[in-house]
């Protein structure tokens, strides 16, 4: 139920956007995201984007993991 999936914004048509979700195109609402642009990654939960996620941060888990292992 609280599952949310990262997807890339490919087309904007406020308050909707078409996103690419693991290869599938879906129309979702984006009115809860500030300053959204084509190319942004968002977390999609039941038809609405709930947060922007940056690609850089996706890599963060890796670095956090490294850091703890090296502690």
């Amino acid at each position: 139920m609280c599952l949310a999936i990262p997807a890339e914004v490919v087309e904007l048509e406020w308050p909707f956007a078409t996103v690419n979700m693991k290869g599938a195109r879906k129309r979702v609402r984006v009115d809860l995201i500030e300053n959204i642009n084509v190319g942004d990654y968002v977390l999609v939960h039941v038809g609405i984007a709930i947060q922007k996620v940056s690609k850089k941060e996706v890599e963060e888990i890796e670095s956090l993991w490294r850091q703890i292992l090296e502690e």
Partner: protein
Amino acid sequence: METDTGRIREKIEKISRGKDIAIMHLCGTHEDTVSKYNLRSLLPENIRLIAGPGCPVCIIPDTDLQKVFHLIESRDIILATFGDMARVPFQDRSLFYYRSRGKDVRIVYSVFDAVEIASKTERDVVFFGIGFETTMPSIAVAIRDSPENFYVYSAHRYFIPAIEAIIKGDMRIDAFINPGHVSTIVGVKAYERYEKYRIPMAIAGFEPQDVMLAIYILLKALKDGKSGIFNEYTRAVRYEGNVLAQKVIDDVFESSDGEWRGFGIIPETGVKIKDEFQEKDAEKAFEDVFSDFQPVEDKRKKHCRCGEVLKGLITPEECSLYMKACTPRNPVGPCMVSFEGTCSIWAKYGIM
């Protein structure tokens, strides 16, 4: 990755040696990650990883289900809801049962699909809304932006205030793994009200590495005698959360007492549609239908221990019906229905 997992396992063992520690996670999707990757087998015996009440379908009491059944029995409406909710049984009936009896029950992926149905018909469309803070913004947006014949039966619950009931409950919990996507909305700041209890909390993502890291972070905090709120899921959770989403929740809903399966009434967790939007509130719009409503008990659920599973007091195999009278194909309780329910997750991954 495999050697990394081995190393984190060693670190976990070393840091927790000799101490019995109970960690509770608060999200059904975390239980899915934990069971799918068998993460409990990577933990030493002195660490118990307990599943909490993080399943919005499971915690909905039978009263709400009965009220919705009562509504579709009394009125010729279109009832829309999420697939999981439609399978929850009450006295051998479910919304799918009603559909097979000719009632108009529609399964939707999102509330906006239900709004679209309403925009294409003259008939009344009632959305049976469930979910925590993750889902509530979408429902609030739909309430603000939908045609006149669209209504919501709100069986949502605020999750954050429910943590209080868990902390003060029957069980000693040493640390919590907080739900990732509820936190995306409410932010790290929402947990600050719990700092006074000095129980470490870690917000975690949903990859197996996220969960193992969160466990390690919590164990380290316990060892150092520190509490606080740790954010492991920085790629999706900010300190402030999603402010626009919080605002739309506050504009449309207000809190009241909320009933939870297993827990009873938990203050501040009920989600009422504000008077300003009362024409959207199915409980008000169809008030006359509910005036003669009397809740009854479901005898078939007499031996279902879903409430105790939700409180983390037992695990599914301690229920005598698990995988005997209660299976994913023929579920007795909602914990065996929802894909976030612990019984259904354990059944899916063959845990006995």
